[in-house]
């Protein structure tokens, strides 16, 4: 019995532990390459796989770079500042990795080929998976603060405080936009949400779903400290924020945690809005579900990288204002719109009604967004540029 339990635990967790760190390694390479191309550079292209011990290598566009980086990180000197709180300085990177790894278990990913088609294993079968996801993602903030505080460095502390303020603010629109989906499906269970979107009934094709998806994606960018919301680690302002004082393997753990968090939150976005594993051919081949899921996650990550190469960083007041004055009212309105749209559709199942509801809700949401935008911009004078076009 115990052996079975251990086997089940391994079957449920090992694929997650293989897939996502591998994706992390590849993503770092893709990100460096893509950003380089966006900025007219080449990016890493030298490190390859050595063919013989005496020379000759397969460079493969620098695909060996992640491995080289990993080895470098492992053997780098571990520097702890004199004034630092040694225990917390040690714990913070570990604590930042744990929540990100843990939430991967809540994604509706099951690996059917490992245990026979009938009973696939899942690490957690929780009723409230979605809310658990948010609860545990919130713990990431504490690790960031811990790192900032334990470093005994003003810049680190500033980065930590910025991270807390930002994550707490953006968690609200994030949760409120997920609430829409939860409300429509009537369940917090990730599997039920995935089931409700089978075929092409993805929620992102609904007007409220689209609005919620956009809000969710923006919130996700802020929650994972991605550009343009990377204020906690703004290099030009506060060195590297909370991981200024980290080096070597601890820094690698932070890095890993950050990327895994990106995957996790993209996975949640895919689950909530992009139909989870839905896609062509999933009826006949069940493992295609995993393929489609991971493909969608990769596309979202690609968009994140693309945005990082495009947008400049926000100012702190702009960041806070955007969360509280724009995203929050819009996501609350979106809940009402979704409720009404769903109610009217439920009462009247004709196609014409649903088209009218679709158009009406899109107009309402767009008008609201535009209005909020104008209200928020009212006090800001249009900027004139001396040298720009």
């Amino acid at each position: 019995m115990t052996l079975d339990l251990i086997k089940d635990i391994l079957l449920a967790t090992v694929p997650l532990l293989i897939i996502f760190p591998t994706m992390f390694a590849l993503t770092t390479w893709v990100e460096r390459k893509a950003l380089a191309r966006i900025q007219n550079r080449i990016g890493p292209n030298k490190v390859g796989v050595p063919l013989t011990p005496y020379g000759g290598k397969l460079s493969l566009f620098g695909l060996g770079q992640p491995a080289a980086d990993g080895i470098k990180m492992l053997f780098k000197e571990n520097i702890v500042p004199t004034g630092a709180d040694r225990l917390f300085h040690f714990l913070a990177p570990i604590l930042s990795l744990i929540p990100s790894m843990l939430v991967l278990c809540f994604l509706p990913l099951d690996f059917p080929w490992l245990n026979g088609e009938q009973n696939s294993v899942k690490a957690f079968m929780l009723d409230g998976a979605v809310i658990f996801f948010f609860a545990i993602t919130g713990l990431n903030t504490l690790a960031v603060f811990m790192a900032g505080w334990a470093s005994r460095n003003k810049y680190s502390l500033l980065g930590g405080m910025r991270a807390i303020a930002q994550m707490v603010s953006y968690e609200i629109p994030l949760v409120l936009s997920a609430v829409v989906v939860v409300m429509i499906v009537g369940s917090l269970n990730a599997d039920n949400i995935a089931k409700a979107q089978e075929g092409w009934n993805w929620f992102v094709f609904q007007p409220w779903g689209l609005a919620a998806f956009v809000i969710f994606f923006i919130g996700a960018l802020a929650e994972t400290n991605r550009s343009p919301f990377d204020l906690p680690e703004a290099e030009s302002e506060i060195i590297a924020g909370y991981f200024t004082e980290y080096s070597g393997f601890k820094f690698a753990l932070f890095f890993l945690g950050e990327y895994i968090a990106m995957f996790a939150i993209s996975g949640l976005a895919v689950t909530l809005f992009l139909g989870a594993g839905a896609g062509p051919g999933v009826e006949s081949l069940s493992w295609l579900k995993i393929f489609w899921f991971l493909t969608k996650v990769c596309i979202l990550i690609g968009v994140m990288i693309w945005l990082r190469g495009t947008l400049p960083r926000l100012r702190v007041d702009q960041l806070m204002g955007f969360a509280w004055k724009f995203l929050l009212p819009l996501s609350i309105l979106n809940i009402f719109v979704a409720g009404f749209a769903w109610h009217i559709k439920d009462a009247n199942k004709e196609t014409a009604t649903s088209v009218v509801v679709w158009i009406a809700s899109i107009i309402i949401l767009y008008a609201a967004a535009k209005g909020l935008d104008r209200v928020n911009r009212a006090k800001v004078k249009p900027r004139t540029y001396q040298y720009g076009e």
Partner: protein
Amino acid sequence: MNEVTAFWMLAAISVLGALIAVRKRNLVHGVFALLVFFVGLAGLFLLLLAEFIAVVQILVYAGAVGILILFAIMLTDRVTGRDAFRVTSRGSFWGALISLAVFLVILLPTIQDIPTIENPTPKETIVETSTVKQLGIHLIKPYIITIEILALLLTAALVGAVTAAQGGRASENEENNK
């Protein structure tokens, strides 16, 4: 690895967390110990099959309250320097005595007549009857008034907190202006 082992481990975690939280001189360490206590308690809730409560415990306590306390510490104590660590105790002896007395008063009845429940409800029944959906239906149907009052309370708390925290600054500004 049965339930009792898990219980003792979680109990040890939460008791240790709570003890460190109240006795540690360094405030920030104390807060993190408190968070360990909250998470340990969430584990206990999970063990007692109250899954949703465990989630809410982590979401509200570890997520929100912990961060709020950290913010308060950052705003009130000097972060660097000795002040952050200078938290002295008062009347430790009498405090310990009273706590011990209260503990005995609570404990004695528990030990004397342990409420022996012959056959507690089986796990499966509880899991089936206490889904999030059931909880939601209960909240909306019989407890709707409570929910409304709670919403009002939270709004009042929000407004109150903002005024309390900001009022000081306003008066300070006035003083500065004088």
